[in-house]
């Protein structure tokens, strides 16, 4: 599976990438703002999952979601916001715009994996999967 990490913080992208690699996801692409992410998606291949920060220069994460959802051909792409924006109203806006999930920063490794499980990208959270994650 292919994942696009969209965050203006290089440190955050590398933390998330490290967690993804631990659970066996290696096809990871990165973008530092919404515009760059949009260009990546349009150039293809379309990622299966985009993890998207909200507050970024040039184009913010919400505008990225809105733009990408205008194009029917990207509908297969799952989107999860990963952001410090933590207000109920913001979560409503992001889901209404077409994000599927929402993870609030700061988060720990296990929370990210829980969310990937909800989205069906990793197996159920049983002993075996967490074993694998932490080995």
């Amino acid at each position, binding site marked *: 599976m292919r994942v696009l990490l969209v965050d203006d913080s290089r440190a955050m992208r590398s933390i998330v990438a490290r967690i993804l690699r631990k659970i066996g996801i290696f096809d990871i692409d990165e973008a530092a703002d919404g515009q760059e992410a949009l260009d990546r998606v349009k150039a293809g291949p379309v990622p299966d999952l985009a993890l998207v920060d909200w507050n970024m220069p040039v184009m913010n994460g919400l505008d990225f979601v809105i733009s990408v959802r205008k194009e029917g051909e990207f509908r297969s792409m799952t989107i999860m916001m990963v952001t410090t924006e*933590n*207000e*109920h*109203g913001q*979560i*409503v806006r992001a*889901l209404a715009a077409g*994000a*599927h*999930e*929402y*993870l*609030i920063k*700061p*988060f*720990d*490794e*296990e*929370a990210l994996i*829980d*969310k990937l*499980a*909800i989205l069906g990208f990793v197996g*159920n*959270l*049983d*002993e075996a999967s*967490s*074993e694998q994650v*932490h080995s």
Partner: protein
Amino acid sequence: MTVANDQFTFLQELVYKRSAMVLSDSKAYLAESRLMPLARAIGISDTGEFVAHVRRSHDVKLEEQVVEAMTINETLWFRDKRPFDALRSHVLPDLISRKASARQLSIWSAASSSGQELYSVAILLEESFPQMRDWRVSLLGTDLSREMVDKATSGVYSSMEMNRGLPAAMLIRYFSQSGSSYRLTDTIRSKVRFQQMNLASTPWPSLPVFDVILLRNVLIYFDVGTKQRILQEARRRLSPGGYLLLGTAETTSGLSGEFETVSAEGAVFYRVKER
């Protein structure tokens, strides 16, 4: 000196190694109060020093005590996912058809901690079983810890807690903002009740019978004799055909011969054997 960051990392690794439980960073504040009694018991008056001692000593017994002290309230929404899938697709439909005339259902979360387990059931009922809205549904949560009972009753959770296993669509539907926290809507809160109860103190006080008992991730804290007594008490509180659910790492085998297993969606439930 208190518990420093790298010491908490050590505790996280230790807890994971021994219990497969992952202590979130938000639990760092617990280290102080949880470890103090253990420290005092071996004559150390400072938790930082105590952790350093545990680290050096490689004393397995001591490590176990630390793990227990640290994990005691760990919980999350829809924990392990599969049991909740099984409730939705198998257990509840079965109970609904068998109890269609009485139109009553009762579920007990017997070590409810901060409430996520019981509220997950309440949300699941609301989401997937609208036909039960006019049933008499009783949802009870009990825990040893008064602090946890109060927290569960309040129905207020931090973003760290919300992140653990709760689908965003449910956050939107069943929670509202409360400062920097999130509060369950009254629709859900009004369906559940929490009270204090010590499972280890048997015989249990008089309790009604339950169609589903969730006894999850708590037997691990008890010795064999206590486990046996608790399972025996639980058996007596199961309605005919009722279901008992344990934690993923827990089993009745070797403790009680009175249960048989039912598997669904990769989860295992226990029912009282027919004689």
